[in-house]
């Protein structure tokens, strides 16, 4: 409401009798009070049967870094040959690789009391559940580093006709996905039910384009789109796609169907946390055209998943290096000393004490926005930190004792409703072979992409549990009328910096390349923000790449 009518009304107040003024004032005051009460009462009333809490990454540690809070002076200074900072997938992968190459003189520091980064998971009485990344697709067959790891951890159990045989219990059980569209649950997420022929034709056209680009190779003989991203062709013909948005590209291709755009928005939100108008066309097509994995017992694009999502992969990845991992320790400053060694300042979160570790090599398996704060003015890189964008996410794990059924396909692993803010929910119990599980945990994912990430992040940090419920419940009720009564517990989790997103010119621009360069040949970098897309495979390869750079310092041949 603008100020002007208020003054007008203010003037009007003077002409009112005392009684009617008091009456009005009373009504307004009551209104304000009531409004406040209702706001406070409503959530408690509507969600009174629902238990749960708000959680997220260690906020205290984050504040120390961001707000540069004073810490006690460091006591002691020990020496470590190689120090890995950050226990997400790339850090764990680096540790695993060092170990596998017979290199044991390293430590891995993790500020949380658990490793895994955004492949973190939780557990309750009903089921384990993901708190972030929750699946991978079957590996590209030429990605032997990845297939090697998958063999090590029993995901690939053998080979038939040169094709990997995947463990049946990890391949996503059927039925896999469904979409609530035009009043009905259809099988599969690509919109189909109730679509006009024109929309269907455009969707077909898009997938024909995908098939073409899947096979396409650049003039250097490399695939146009590959995993890891840095294996992709340097051919300008394809790389040029990185300088326009996915949306612009679709318009160039005359692909304008609302349903197709919804679907591609959904996909980009799912993988990058942003929509097609923010993501580069190269990244948008990479999602579809980079996966060519063939298996003896599954289709291309088949999904591997576990009740705890990629938390399962975290455990396997960490298994080899578990003796080297130190949790609850945060690095808050890094500098080179006079001898050129790397001096790191470490904060013991439980004890509240600090100490120094001097290392020959450091692998920074941390995102660049964190590195910027650790390096301060000590280490200068030609990196434009401000141009790196991270999508914030909200994740809710919902324990239900039943699921109101609707028309069409029944519960799948991935359940999405057309034209809703979230990207739907996955059923954590999908891989259970039990006949009946009435109680289930559903993991609901909401990328916060309606505002600039910075603003969305700040808003997310200040939201209360009830406010998150106010955002989530209407959508869940739309998907399953009456579900509120079936909900026992909702655990909320906010990722302020959930994942890097591949904005225009990020993947093939100069900045990403600069950020990958080691400093002084003893500070190395491994994080998915150096790939530009946040998927398990990239983190896995980032870790191996950085570990190989360290090993090269000891005369071992680098892998990449």
């Amino acid at each position, binding site marked *: 409401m603008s100020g002007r009518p208020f003054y007008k009304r203010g003037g009007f107040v003077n002409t009112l009798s005392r009684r009617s003024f008091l009456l009005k004032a009373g009504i307004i005051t009551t209104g304000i009070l009531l409004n406040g009460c209702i706001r406070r009462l409503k959530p408690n009333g509507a969600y009174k049967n629902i238990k749960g809490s708000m959680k997220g990454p260690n906020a205290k540690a984050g504040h120390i870094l961001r707000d540069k809070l004073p810490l006690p002076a460091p006591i002691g200074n020990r020496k470590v040959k190689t120090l890995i900072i950050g226990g997400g997938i790339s850090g764990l992968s680096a540790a695993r690789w060092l170990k596998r190459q017979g290199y044991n003189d390293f430590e891995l520091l993790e500020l949380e009391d658990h490793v895994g980064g955004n492949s973190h998971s939780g557990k309750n009485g009903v089921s384990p559940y993901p708190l972030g990344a929750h699946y991978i697709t079957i590996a590209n067959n030429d990605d032997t580093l990845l297939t090697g790891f998958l063999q090590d951890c029993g995901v690939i159990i053998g080979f038939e006709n040169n094709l990997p045989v995947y463990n*049946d*219990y990890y*391949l996503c*059980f*059927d039925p896999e996905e469904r979409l609530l569209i035009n009043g009905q649950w259809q099988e599969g997420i690509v919109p189909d039910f109730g679509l006009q022929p024109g929309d269907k034709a455009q969707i077909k056209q898009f997938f024909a384009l995908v098939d073409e680009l899947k096979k396409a190779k650049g003039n250097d003989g490399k695939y146009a789109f590959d995993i890891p991203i840095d294996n992709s062709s340097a051919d300008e013909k394809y790389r040029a796609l990185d300088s326009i948005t996915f949306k612009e590209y679709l318009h160039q291709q005359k692909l304008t169907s609302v349903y197709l755009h919804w679907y591609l928005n959904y996909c980009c939100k799912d993988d990058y946390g942003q929509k097609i108008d923010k993501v580069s066309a190269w990244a948008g097509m990479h999602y579809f055209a980079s996966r060519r994995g063939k298996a003896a017992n599954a289709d291309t694009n088949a999904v591997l998943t576990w009740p705890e999502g990629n938390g399962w992969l975290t455990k396997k990845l960490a298994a080899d290096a578990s003796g080297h991992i130190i949790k609850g320790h945060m690095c808050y400053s890094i500098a080179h000393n006079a001898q050129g060694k790397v001096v790191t300042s470490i904060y013991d979160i439980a004890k509240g004490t600090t100490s120094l570790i001097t290392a020959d090599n450091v692998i920074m398996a941390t995102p660049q926005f964190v590195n910027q704060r650790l390096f301060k003015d000590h280490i200068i890189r030609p990196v434009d930190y401000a141009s790196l964008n991270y999508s914030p996410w909200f994740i809710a794990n919902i324990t239900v004792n039943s699921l109101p059924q609707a028309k069409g396909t029944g519960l799948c692993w991935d359940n999405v409703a057309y034209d809703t803010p979230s990207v739907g929910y996955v059923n954590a119990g999908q891989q259970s*072979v*039990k*006949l009946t599980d*009435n109680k289930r945990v559903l993991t609901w994912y909401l990328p916060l992409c309606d505002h600039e990430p910075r603003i969305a992040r700040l808003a997310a940090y200040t939201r209360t549990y009830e406010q998150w419920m106010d955002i989530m419940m209407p959508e869940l009720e739309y998907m399953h009328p009456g579900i509120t009564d079936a909900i026992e517990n909702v655990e909320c989790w906010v990722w302020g910096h959930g994942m890097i997103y591949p904005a225009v010119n990020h993947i093939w621009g100069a900045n990403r390349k600069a950020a990958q360069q080691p400093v002084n040949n003893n500070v190395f970098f491994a994080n998915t923000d150096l790939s530009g897309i946040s998927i398990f495979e990239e983190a896995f390869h980032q870790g191996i790449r950085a570990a190989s750079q360290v090993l090269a310092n000891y005369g071992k041949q680098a892998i990449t």
Partner: protein
Amino acid sequence: MNKKLHALLLISVFVVATCGLIYELIAGTLASYLLGDSVTQFSTIIGVYLFSMGIGSWVSKYFEKNIISWFIQLEILVGLVGGTSSTILFLVFESIASFRIILYSLVGITGILVGLEIPLLMRILKDRYEFKDLVSKVFTFDYIGALLASLIFPLLLIPYLGLVKTSYLVGILNVGVALIVCVSFKKEIKAAAYLQTSAVISILALLVGFVYAGVITNFSESLTYADTIIYSKSTPYQRIILTKKGKVLRLFLNGNLQFSSDDEYRYHEALVHPGLQALPNARNVLVMGGGDGLAVREILKYPNIKSVTLVDLDKGMTGLFKSNRMLLNLNKSSLLSPKVMVINADAFTWLRQNKTKFDFMVIDFPDPSNYSVGKLYTNSFYKLAKGILAPGGIMVIQATSPYVAPKSFWTVDTTLRSVGLHTIPYHNYVPSFGEWGYIMATENPVYKKPSMFLPGMRFITKESLDLMFYFPKDMAKVQTEVNKLNNQVLVKYFEDEWSSVL
């Protein structure tokens, strides 16, 4: 005494007579539903009932004062006992041992109370009519009431209300008579207010029973079953319904017929004997599903069998087939045999943990009509099953109808072969199901047709086995995909093939 009151008392006779006969019919019907053999049940029930009425008439002479008050109390009591009788009988039916005692006690009590009614009424009326008029009027109304009861019971009450609701309704009528008599004669009786209150409370209680009768036997459910439902229970996993028509018992799980007692022998003989007869040295047998104990009954016919392990998800199911007299007769108390160990567990989960090997395995799951059950027909499941098959052992799988659902049937075959098993598909005719299919699977191609079968088989012979192994053109093998956890093709085939039939 005015005419209105005369009429009222005679109408009471009429109602009382109608109700009395309906209680008798309810007891007889219930007994023949639950215990079978309607001739015996009806005869004994009618006998006990009439005899009890005689006791009631004899006892009536000991009521000397306050006859109207006694009559009212009696009516309330008849209403309460009669009204709740069928509920009580349905509820105690599960604990079958005491069922007959409770049945005949209830029939006896109702009979005695009903037997008291007419003598007491006649004594109330004795000073108001001449003896010949009294006898003529009372018995006229008594017999008209009986005619009405015998007509409305089968034509209206049972089809529209069902047994339990009928009992409550009749109980309400009885207490209603008490209430009306009480109001009309309030000057002649002591403690009229007390009797009136009891009557009202009783009517309300019976009304509650009437409204909630659906919980005991779901009437809308009974409409979907052709036969009378004699048992129904929702376990955490499924809804178990047992129906009876004549001597034939049928078991339904979630509305799907599992067996019909008149032809289940065809199914279970075909399921067990082609395999087990070929394994003279078999010792240990595993049955998965089959909580009815009927396959176990067939297995226990072989003296060489030392142990049978039955894995069935539902305790409600195995519990029923361990305790109900009729069902124990049917499965020959197989689940109570010391050789049998019943494990109530999820088959897939159990199989993943189990290390014991078995010489013969019967995999008798419900049809793959949903994704949950479909998992039990996947290559992953059969891989585990193969892992616990003893050398030279045989497993047999119920595999739906090769006639109605050939693709589904042959998918099971393809899936078994995909894990390296040799299969021997066969089929027979089970009237309740139609043409039905089974598949034996072995690790090596070792199966030899048995040259003879145990004595006492009702269906299977050496000659019929040859026919069972032969697949005519309309059931011939078709190419299908392998059913896997990540494609569940079987559920889709099954849905397609049966949706055109059902």
